[in-house]
């Protein structure tokens, strides 16, 4: 079978664990309005600290140690950007670079295997042995942690402290005039989000039974892609709704990845795909506005830009479909490009319709 239940299940498991990192970014990026680039390093930090503790036979203590390490990392990032006035992006990059050495020092080598160590997953396997849930013990563990994290975030963001953190990302002036210190709020927010990131890293380590120094590379982009998928599908309504959307976005991302891997897409291409998703999704509103403006400008000369683009994307779609049929080597890439062009075609048609409807309503 093309897609088996097993593939979907492991995609969902991975998606749920990765969604922890996306939830951490939900707190720092969407709520606090800080793009925390130390995510990559902090994720690996959580995994390395967790792995070393798990190797001593204490998988649960490993999770707590990972959380603690994440809080420390978040505190340093926050300290640099609030007290030392380093640009928030740069502060993240600096911490990220420093964490690489720290992670190597913790691990002692580039890769550590947890094959013989007990983990929360092997523990849950023993607990569930013989029950109907025995086959999806990993899913149960992942789900538990995600539910706990979502609950924590939702409840936390409703408290006065949580509201203050949201307001800090929304309007710093207002926070100050409510006699709250934005520095404190950014520090607490980044400590919490990095704790969640590190916990996610630790869980991935215990899940994969390995910890690698390079496992975090590109994590921030992947998590942002999940976040954006979630917020695009679920909209930006209430906080609980958005948090659930982020989790589902991460799961969808992993399922798409699983399908892409099934299509023989090289695993190395995944980072490029997530980079494109993030870049396109964030620039989307700007592009749409620019296109609408150019379309209006050209329509005075009787040219419809949307029509031209529609024709171009339709032609490209057909071209890539034909290429995918007649070439053998790069078929997955051609299918991907054909799909992409089809999506753009649909976007152009909807934009054109909207423009006409608005023009009609205006007249």
């Amino acid at each position, binding site marked *: 079978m093309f897609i088996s239940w097993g593939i979907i299940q492991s995609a969902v498991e991975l998606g749920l664990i990765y969604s922890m990192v996306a939830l951490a970014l939900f707190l720092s990026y969407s709520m606090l309005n800080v793009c925390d680039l130390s995510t990559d390093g902090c994720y690996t930090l959580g995994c390395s600290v967790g792995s070393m503790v798990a190797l001593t036979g204490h998988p649960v203590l490993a999770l707590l140690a990972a959380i603690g390490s994440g809080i420390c990392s978040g505190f340093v990032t926050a300290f640099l950007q609030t007290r030392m006035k380093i640009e928030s992006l740069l502060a993240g990059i600096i911490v990220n670079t420093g964490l690489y050495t720290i992670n190597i020092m913790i691990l002692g080598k580039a890769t550590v295997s947890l094959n013989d160590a007990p983990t929360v997953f092997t523990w849950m396997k023993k607990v569930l042995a013989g029950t109907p849930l025995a086959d999806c013990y990993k899913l149960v563990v992942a789900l538990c942690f995600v539910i706990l994290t979502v609950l924590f975030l939702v409840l936390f963001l409703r408290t006065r402290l949580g*509201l203050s953190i949201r307001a800090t990302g929304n309007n710093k002036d207002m926070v100050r005039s409510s006699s709250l210190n934005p520095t404190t709020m950014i520090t607490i927010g980044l400590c919490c989000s990095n704790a969640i990131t590190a916990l996610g890293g630790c869980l991935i380590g215990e899940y994969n039974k390995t910890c690698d120094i390079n496992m975090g590379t590109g994590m921030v982009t992947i998590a942002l892609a999940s976040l954006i998928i979630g917020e695009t599908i679920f909209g930006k309504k209430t906080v609980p709704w958005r948090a659930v959307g982020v989790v589902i976005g991460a799961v969808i991302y992993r399922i798409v990845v699983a399908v892409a891997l099934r299509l023989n897409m090289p695993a190395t291409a995944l980072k490029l795909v997530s980079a494109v998703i993030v870049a396109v999704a964030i620039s989307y509103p700007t592009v749409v506005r620019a296109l609408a403006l150019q379309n209006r400008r050209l329509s005075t000369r009787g040219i419809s830009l949307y029509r031209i683009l529609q024709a171009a994307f339709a032609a490209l779609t057909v071209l890539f479909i034909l290429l995918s049929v007649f070439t053998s080597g790069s078929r997955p890439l051609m299918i991907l490009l054909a799909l992409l062009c089809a999506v753009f075609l649909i976007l152009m048609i909807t934009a054109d319709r909207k423009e006409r409807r608005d023009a009609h309503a205006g007249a």
Partner: protein
Amino acid sequence: MLVLDNVSKTFNPGTVNSKTALDRLSLHVLPGDFITIIGSNGAGKSTLFNAVCGEFYPDSGTITLDGRDITWLPMHKRAAAIGHLFQDPMRGTAPGMTIEENLALASGRGGWFGTISRQDREFFRERLAELDMGLEDRMKQPVGLLSGGQRQALTLLMATVNPPKLLLLDEHTAALDPATAEKVTELTERIVKESCLTCLMVTHNMQAALDMGSRTIMMDAGRIIYDTSGEERKRLTVSDLMDLFRARTGAALDNDRMLLR
């Protein structure tokens, strides 16, 4: 109440852009005073407010609020005692959060881990109803959906929900349309009166400067050039003010937003 003693502030000292915004300014505000402040562009009116609320620290001089020296107190620590409204209605509220969430933050009820309780909602509803803008039925809506006037009224409520020792109003109605501005002005007068607040208000409306409050000061080049209250102030007209300004500075009062009526 509020005492400024010889406060000076020069921006960009030692450069061609050097600007003395406050020049050995002294002001003694009595409890319950409602002072209106007028002056031309760049006279230092907003700078005076920023010095009081801690946006920057003065180069020299001291600021005392209610007997406590606040000269070196960070802004967010003064904010508990000082309410500050700006001309920009967007500045005082968090647009992505709901009305009740904004009010909850401003009121500071409950501990750090407290949530908005039913009593809080009831209290907010009552206070919002007093604004008479229908906001009490929109408490779950993001503030970003409100009009400028509604946002400014909400900001005023947020600044005074815990009555501050001092309320600073920096042309807070200048960006609103005339009808809304009048409404917010009415609200301001009512709230200041009800809570017996000490209040400083910068205004571009010369008539309002004389009609509202109990004392009027005129500023120019970082100094107070005229300070009036009581019987003398009651007899003043807008044209008297203009003449006084010309007599004391040798130039016409020049403010690009000024309303003479």
